[in-house]
Structure formats: C-alpha cells, structure tokens
C-alpha cells in the first residue's frame, strides 16, 4: 500500500484533519471522538450494577394506568414486594426488610414518616405519572447512599432539569390521564418545562382519586380503600460554568385515604417542602450541597366505612435535612468520596378529646410530645477500578442519633383510663433521652468475567436506630396501643425507650449472564442477612372486649430480637423476535424466594412474601404494543404466631394489555386480573374496615378485574 494511502486511512480513521495550510502558523488538529459509555457493570460499581435496577420513564408510563402506588409498581421487581397500606401508601419491602430499614429518597432527600401507622411513607409523596426514574438497590448498598438503615435503597427522581440550545427557548412537557373501572378511579398529571440555555423551570402536577375497590370473585367491596390526593411542585434550575443550582418547592394535599387494615383512616394530609441543591464539577472533583425543609400536618379519623364514631388524631412533623459531599478523582483508577449529613425530625402527636365520650376525654391524649430525632453522619468511601473489568467500592460511616421527647398525658384519670394513667406516669418519670453511636461499613466488588458475564459480591454491616414511635409510644390501654403500628394486623403496640439499634450483616452475590446485544439475559442473586436486635414485638397481654373476652388481637411491646433472612432472586429475558426500532417480541420472567427466621422465638418473621413467579410477554410492532403478564404466588404458610398472622392461599393472576400510539398520543387498555380471581394479599394484613362493618375478620383481598384506560402524550 502506498504510504500516502496508509496515511490518509489513518488520518480519516483517527478523524485527524491536520491538513497543512501553507503560511498558517497555528492550525487545529481534530482528535477522534472519545466514547464514554456508562453501561458496563464495572463502571457502575457504586450503583450495584447487577442487584440494582433502574425503572425508567417509559416503563412507568406503561404501568401508571394500573396503579397510583409506587411501591405496588416496584413489586414487579425481583426481591421487592409491597405491604398494603392505603391506595397510594403501600410500604415497599426489599428482601424481607421494610419500613425505615430501607433508605427511600425522593430527589435525593429522605422524608420522615408523620403518623403512628406510617400512613404517609416517602413514596406516598410521589406519583407514577410524574416521576422520571426509580433506582432500586436490592443488594448491598454503598454507605454513601445513606445511613441509619439496614436494607436496600429506593431512589425516586423527578425529571432532571432540561435546558435549551444556545439562543433558543425550550418548551416541553408531558400530559397523561387514566381511568380504572375497579374503584372508579381516575387521575391526570402534567409536566411543563420552560427553559433557556442557563435557566430552567419545571412545573409538575398530578391528581388521583378512587372509590373503594372490589375484590375478585365473591370478595365484594373492600371497605376503606378509597383515596384522593393532589401534588404540585415547581423546580427551578440554574446552570452556570461549573455547576448546577436547583431549587424546588411543592405541596401535597390528600383530603382522604382509607386504610383497609388499620383502625384509622387518613382524613387529611398536608405537606409542603422546599429544597435546594448545588452540584459543582471542578477539576479537583465534584461538590454536592443539599438542604431541605418539610412540614407535614397529618390528621386521622374515620371515613364512611368505619363510622359511626369519631377519634381525631393529629400528627405534625418538621424535618430539616442538610448534607455536603465531595467526590475526588485522586487518580485515574481511584475516586474518594467523603460526606457529612445532618437530619433533624421534630414530631408531635396529639389526640383531641371527643366531647361526650367518657373514654376519650376530658383532656387531649398526648401521644408524642415534641419528640426530636437528630442524626449527624459522616462517611468515607473509596472506589477503585483495578482494571477494565474489576472494580470495588469500600466505605465506612458513622451516625450519631440523638432522640428525646417531652412528657405525655392520657385522656383523663377515670377508672377506665387506669392503664394509660399508670403508663403515662411511668413514662414521664423515666429518662427519655437516648443517644446511639452507629458504625456501618460496606464493601462491593464487581468483576466482568467476559462481555457476557459479570459477577457482583457485597458485604455490609449496617445499623439503624429505632424510630420515634418504636421508642416513645407509651399507651398501655387497649385502644391507645391499637392506634400504634404499621403492621396491618389489628394488634396493639407499646414502645420501649430502651430499644437498641438494629445491626445487620448482609452478604449478597449476583451473576449476570447475557447482556447488550444478546438474545437472552439471566440474573441470579442470592443473599443472606442476619439482624441482631431486629425490632420485632413481644407479647404483653391478650386484648379483651367489654365483657372481658379475648378479641383475638394482642398487645405487644417493641422488642429487640435476632432474625435472619435469606433467599434468591432470579430474573431473565429471551428475545423471541427482533425487528427495527425496538420492535420485537420479548419473554421475561422472574422468581423471588425468601425465608426468614426470628431466631429469638424460633418462628418466621412477620409479613414475608411467599415464593412468587412472574412471566410476561411483550410484543411491539410500529405503533402497536401488546402484553400478557402472568403471576403465580405460593401459599403463605410461614406466619408469625406472635401477631396471629393469617395464612394466605396460593393464587395465579393474568393481566392483558394493548396500546397504540397515534399522532403522538399513546392510548392503552389493560385488563387486570382477567379472570376476576379472588385472592388474599399475602402482605395485606387483616381487613379491619370490613371487620368493623360486618363483624367478620378476613385478610385484605386483592383487586378483582379492572379495565384500565390510559392516555399520555409528550410535547
């Protein structure tokens, strides 16, 4: 080959446009573009690439007509299940761990519960119609992802700011709405962004409402399952030479949300927040500063299905959150992250007297008197890329949790109120301030065996301090204690200021086979978690009715016990046919198996999902999408005897879906539970709304058949 040809070839392939121009001293040499891909497992070690899953906007758009409950939608993922609450307040459970054991972040911020029944968990402040992505880390999460937790991480992101090209103005948005026949539910959402090259403003709003739904077959109406809420948020972003400044504020208002498995319903929840974050990208590294304030007013009483009667309960929470983090690329292989976080929670919970009621009066019941829970944490983490294929993240963190609360008071001092009178004086006499010094550590290793196989290993020791209700609930009367608890079991709970923090050791492994461009994928992820001082419950007494007969419900005290959880999550896909532009037919499947043991009492841990298998087929051709999803869940026989947890039967459900996109509008019709199968939710708890109305106690039934209609468009 002549030399000049070789040179030309090199020049072209290297994008080398160094064409000599006589007389010019300075000319620019183009270097061929560098590609920075972020899909490789070893690149993403800090995001647990194999046990971590990212649910994107497209997936949410396909699912938003089905449910307004993020946790319920996340239960599609292997290792994740949803413990029933209200219609938009299910509590996610990851590998057997739930509630505050998980880190749940919305736009990077933690949201404190503001209810003795955890009716307003963080995900209840989000709507599937208006969020852009959810990242779920089911395995070992690096300590930088948050402290004061022992389980997985759920991170919800609303749309990242969009900016216009120089000299232009960008106007873009999305709108959607849905209707569900079962429960006569409907809702809508809109996102609108107006942006220049440096400034961006995004409004997000959503509205949902539903009546009570019906169970399948002969299960009939499921009482206290209605809900409504509105969310509004405005986000501003300013992008300058080296960083991004964001400001966001929002308000949520929910006028009612029934809780089928609680004695109470939510009759009002108002929450507003402001937050600010700054991300700076400098030559020495990244800087992230965040601050947030949230104020929540939560009111409980009875909705129509639990009438007659009244029992107002008001909870107020103020939270302040601030953090500073730096990420330092100390060498081409090493990144060091250092961060510090502060979180302040103030919680007050009072139950006004009910006029004319001898039990609930004459004074207000002070359940929690201005309790505070302050956490200050710091971490250091080292990420190293040992080679193109192997990387690791190792970190330690320290969290100091300080809690205190004021004196309490019962409704009154009558004979019938004696249990609470004595409990209050004992509580008020004792020291209530507690300080925990919690040390955590995590280590993750990712190795790409080949382009088609990757391995992940993780170990973590994590610690969580008790929440305010676990430590400071004090009422010993039947009624007062039955107002405490997020278990949906109808039992009464009493706190214990002397509870120790939960300490968990987790081993997690995962193997991913197949991958980009492969006709199939398979992920196998086993795990084992042992929790010392797991906050479970110990028997205090049987609860009795007016005649002194046991009701079948019990009073329990939060207690440190030991527990272990192990299981395996499997998931895979097979591309059956593949066409152009994402057309094709895909088969997907997953299986989650989990077993838990309370090592103190020898029985199973409460509210654990039985074996679940899911198989789905999705077909897409041009504007048409078709899907069929089958789910089989085994009988739940491993139940917690301490709480009289009911068993649930095995069931199988089929969903069918079709969607068509015409002139930018996607119209979908799904048939959920096609055969109208009657089934009990394995994590549904007992149906107390029905119990009050019928006197028959049953498990909370799952939704019967529903025709779900969805519309969405982008502009």
């Amino acid at each position, binding site marked *: 080959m002549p030399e000049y040809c070789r040179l030309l070839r*090199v020049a072209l392939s290297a994008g080398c446009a160094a064409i000599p121009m006589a007389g010019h001293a300075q000319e620019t040499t183009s270097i061929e573009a560098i590609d920075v891909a972020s899909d490789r497992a070893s690149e993403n070690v800090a995001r647990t690439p194999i046990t971590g899953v990212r649910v994107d906007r497209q997936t949410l758009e396909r699912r938003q007509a089905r449910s307004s409950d993020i946790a319920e939608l996340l239960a599609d993922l292997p290792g994740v299940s949803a413990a029933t609450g209200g219609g938009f307040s299910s509590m996610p459970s990851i590998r057997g761990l739930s509630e505050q054991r998980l880190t749940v972040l919305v736009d990077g911020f933690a949201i404190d519960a503001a209810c003795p029944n955890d009716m307003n968990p963080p995900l209840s402040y989000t709507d599937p119609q208006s969020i852009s992505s959810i990242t779920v880390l089911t395995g070992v999460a690096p300590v930088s992802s948050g402290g004061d937790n022992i389980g997985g991480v759920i991170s919800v992101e609303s749309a990242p700011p969009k900016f216009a090209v120089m000299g232009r103005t960008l106007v873009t948005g999305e709108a959607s709405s849905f209707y569900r026949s079962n429960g006569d539910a409907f809702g809508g959402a809109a996102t609108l962004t107006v942006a220049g090259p440096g400034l961006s403003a995004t409004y997000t709003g959503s509205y949902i409402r539903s009546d009570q739904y019906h169970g399948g077959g002969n299960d009939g109406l499921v009482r206290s399952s209605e809900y409504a809420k509105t969310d509004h948020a405005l986000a501003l972003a300013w992008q300058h030479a080296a960083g991004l400044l964001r400001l966001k504020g929002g308000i949520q208002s929910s006028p009612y949300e029934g809780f089928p498995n609680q004695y109470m319903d939510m009759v009002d929840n108002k929450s507003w927040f402001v937050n600010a974050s700054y991300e700076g990208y*400098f030559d020495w590294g990244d800087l992230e500063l965040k601050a947030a304030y949230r104020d929540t007013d939560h009111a409980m009483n009875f909705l129509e299905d639990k009438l007659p009667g009244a029992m107002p309960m008001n909870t107020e929470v103020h939270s302040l959150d601030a953090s500073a983090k730096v990420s330092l690329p100390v060498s081409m292989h090493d990144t060091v992250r250092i961060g510090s976080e502060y979180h302040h929670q103030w919680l007050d919970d009072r139950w006004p007297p009910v006029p004319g009621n001898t039990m609930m009066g004459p004074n207000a019941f002070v359940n929690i008197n201005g309790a505070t829970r302050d956490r200050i944490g710091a971490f250091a983490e080292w990420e190293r890329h040992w080679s193109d294929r192997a990387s690791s993240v190792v970190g330690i963190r320290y969290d100091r949790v300080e809690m205190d609360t004021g004196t309490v008071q019962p409704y009154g001092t009558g004979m019938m109120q004696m249990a609470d009178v004595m409990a209050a004086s004992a509580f008020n006499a004792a020291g209530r301030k507690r300080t925990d010094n919690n040390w955590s550590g995590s280590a993750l290793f990712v190795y790409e065996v080949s382009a088609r196989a990757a391995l992940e290993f993780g170990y973590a020791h994590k610690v969580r301090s008790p929440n305010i209700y676990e430590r400071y609930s004090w009422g010993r009367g039947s009624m007062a204690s039955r107002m405490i608890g997020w278990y949906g079991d109808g039992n009464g709970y009493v706190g214990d200021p002397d509870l120790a923090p939960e300490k968990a050791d987790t081993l997690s492994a995962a193997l991913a086979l197949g991958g980009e461009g492969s006709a199939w994928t398979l992920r196998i992820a086993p795990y084992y978690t042992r929790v010392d001082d797991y906050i479970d419950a110990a028997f205090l007494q049987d609860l009795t009715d007016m005649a002194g007969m046991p009701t079948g419900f019990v009073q329990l005290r939060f207690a440190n016990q030991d527990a272990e959880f192990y299981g395996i999550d499997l998931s895979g896909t097979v591309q059956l046919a593949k066409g152009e532009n994402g057309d094709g037919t895909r088969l997907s499947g997953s299986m989650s198996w989990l077993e838990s043991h309370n090592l103190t009492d020898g029985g199973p841990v409460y509210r654990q999902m039985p074996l679940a298998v899911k198989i789905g087929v999705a077909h897409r051709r041009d504007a048409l999408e078709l899907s069929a999803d089958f789910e089989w869940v085994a009988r739940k026989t491993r139940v917690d005897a301490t709480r009289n947890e009911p068993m649930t039967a095995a069931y199988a459900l089929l969903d069918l879906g079709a969607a068509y996109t015409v002139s930018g509008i996607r119209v979908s019709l799904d048939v959920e539970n096609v055969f109208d199968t009657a089934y009990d939710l394995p994590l549904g708890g007992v149906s107390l709304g029905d119990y009050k109305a019928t006197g028959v106690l049953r498990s909370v039934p799952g939704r019967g058949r529903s025709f779900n209609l969805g519309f969405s468009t982008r502009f």
Partner: protein
Amino acid sequence: MQERPERSTLAAGLQSRTMLPPAGLAQEPPLIAPGPAAPASDPTPGADSRTDDVLSRYVDGLRAAILRWKPGGLRKEGTAIVGFRLDREGRLISSQLVESSGDVQIDRMALRMVRRAAPFRKPDEEIPAGKLDFVLPVRFH
C-alpha cells in the same frame, strides 16, 4: 484480564500504534494495542507526510491518555467538544469548551479528562509548534 497501565507507563503507551476502530463503534477500543509500532517500511514519500504520520501517532497517544480519565457510570447522553493547546514539553497551556453539550456536568467532565490527563508526553521534534492545538469531542452515552 487486561490491566490498566500505571501512570508511569503513560509514555510507553504512546510509543505503540493504537489501532482505532471505525468511528461510531459503541465498543470502546482497547486502551493500548499489544503489538509494537507498525514499521514504516516504504520509502518516505516526503517530509510533510512523515510529519503527519508522527503527528497522528502522537494524537493517538493523547487520545489514549485522556480516555484513561473517563468517569464511570454518569448515565447521561451528550457530546462536549473540548479544545486545548500544548507546549513543546507536552504541558497544557490552555483548555476550554469549544462546544457545550448543554449539560454542565458532561461539559466539565470532558474538560476534567483533558486537564487531569496532562501533562502529556513531549511532542516529537518533527511536529511543528503550530500544530499543537487540538479539538476533541467527548461523547457520553
């Protein structure tokens, strides 16, 4: 397992010919091709093309050195074009954004890659000082 070269072997990497894949191929090229420099066996047709050959080899080396500082797992899409100038010792005299990706993080990561990779190997004598001005698109996806 292909080990990443240590910082001290940066210069060694520049000595070897990096065979580049066709532009647009998603797979990232090997950081350093294992073989020795391709022998220029043909008689030299002229001084200009020899200079270009040396320059293109030097450019390949720059590219490989910058690539080693790529950040992991950004999960963003966009292309930033960075311009930079070197002195005769391979030191970075200036670096700036020629074209923004529209995303400040991508822009700054691309700039950081170039700045952290500097100083580079001393340019060959054959390369005139007037040719030490470069533009580099960095494509995140």
